[in-house]
């Protein structure tokens, strides 16, 4: 299993790494709500400062954050372009047919670009400094209130852990079968749509079969170890809320209130 670490986790022991995953999730949620509430340029400055502080404290090189931007780059450029050229305003600097650059367009485009940048950096900060399993644990904790509506939180949490645990194994399995079929002459990357879809069949049938086998084995293993249901299970990884988590939350909430007012 050479892809044991999937996702974007960057191992480290910084202050941000050591924060409770629940706290990081909560801060992420509040942050996104804030992004949509703020209106002034100095509010963006404050939130930008928060993100910058997080990036510096995490000890992860800025390169990794910029990599998170790459998949969104075209969407960002497209959006900014649309705002820049199609916003009509009073102070027009440049005009050519329906295209025009106005003061309002410039301001809108800048705000939207900043909004994207801040959201992406903040969520990258979460996934770079928190292991997938820790994020899952945090999510399970935050889902607990759903028990009231009879949502099977325990079972879903167990499924989430199993799924995360098996992703690297299944990715390995996928590449292995792809290589085996390539050796037999299957071409996954070229040809027409129909050809490519056809090429997937000899990959997916063995992959599905082995997944079903894994699930059957897992069921047997769970039953022989006496698994009944999710209720009342003890846990191996226990989340610990520390004093530094409380202080981080208090500081962040104060900054949030200042930004909104």
């Amino acid at each position, binding site marked *: 299993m050479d892809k044991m670490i999937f996702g974007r986790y960057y191992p480290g022991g910084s202050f941000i790494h050591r924060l409770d995953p629940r706290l990081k*999730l909560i801060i992420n949620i509040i942050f996104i709500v804030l992004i949509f509430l703020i209106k002034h340029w100095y509010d963006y400055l404050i939130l930008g400062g928060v993100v910058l502080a997080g990036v510096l404290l995490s000890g992860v090189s800025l390169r990794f954050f910029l990599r998170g931007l790459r998949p969104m780059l075209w969407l960002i450029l497209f959006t900014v372009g649309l705002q820049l050229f199609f916003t009509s305003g009073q102070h027009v600097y440049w005009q050519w047919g329906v295209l025009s650059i106005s003061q309002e367009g410039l301001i809108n485009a800048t705000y*939207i670009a900043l909004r994207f940048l801040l*959201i*992406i950096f*903040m969520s990258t900060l979460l996934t770079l400094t928190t292991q997938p399993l820790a994020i899952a644990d945090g999510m399970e904790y935050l889902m607990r209130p759903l028990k009231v509506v009879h949502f099977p939180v325990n079972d879903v949490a167990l499924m989430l852990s199993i799924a995360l645990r098996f992703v690297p194994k299944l990715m390995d399995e*996928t590449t292995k079968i792809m290589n085996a079929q390539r050796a037999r002459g299957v071409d996954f990357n070229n040809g027409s749509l129909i050809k490519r879809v056809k090429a997937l*069949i000899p990959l997916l049938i063995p992959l599905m079969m082995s*997944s*079903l086998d894994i*699930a059957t084995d897992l069921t047997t293993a769970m039953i022989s170890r006496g698994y009944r249901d999710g209720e009342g299970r003890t846990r191996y990884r226990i989340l610990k809320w520390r004093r530094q988590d409380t202080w981080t939350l208090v500081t962040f909430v104060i900054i949030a209130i200042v930004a909104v007012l």
Partner: protein
Amino acid sequence: MKAINSHSKSNTNNIALPAIIAGLYVAISLVLAPLSFGAVQLRFAEMFNHLAAFNKRYIYALILGCLIVNMFSPLGIIDVVVGTLGTAIGTTLTYLLTRKATKNLTRYIIATLCQIPGVFLVALELTIINKIPFLLTFGSVLVGELLSMAVGAVIIQLLTTRIDFVNGRRKS
């Protein structure tokens, strides 16, 4: 004793199988890059959405798979909430509406149409974040989704010759 064992076996299989299928959804999303035709994207992992038409337990598989994939998307929490909610609505609708369906083709068509509310949510999300006109986003996401689901239906149908999705085992 035998009765208890068989009961807990099906119960436990209802945890293990969706969990592994969720893992497979993530693995396929990560290994098979989407085919892009301009703004329209063909995502192969979407074909798993058809599975909800075969058995209720795949609903969890899809919701969790979607949640994990979105956990690593650049927009993070927003995508997790919106994407997962869309999948939850789509798969639940698929399961409820296909209960009386007997033909696989009917199942695929219903499953494909049931993805529209999810697409609506995603388009709404993008419109709110970047203020692109709603119809533009909705159109391009919808075409991609319908294409992915149509291709997915063909693949799933070919897989049904070897795999019994209703009971979650191989056909021999």
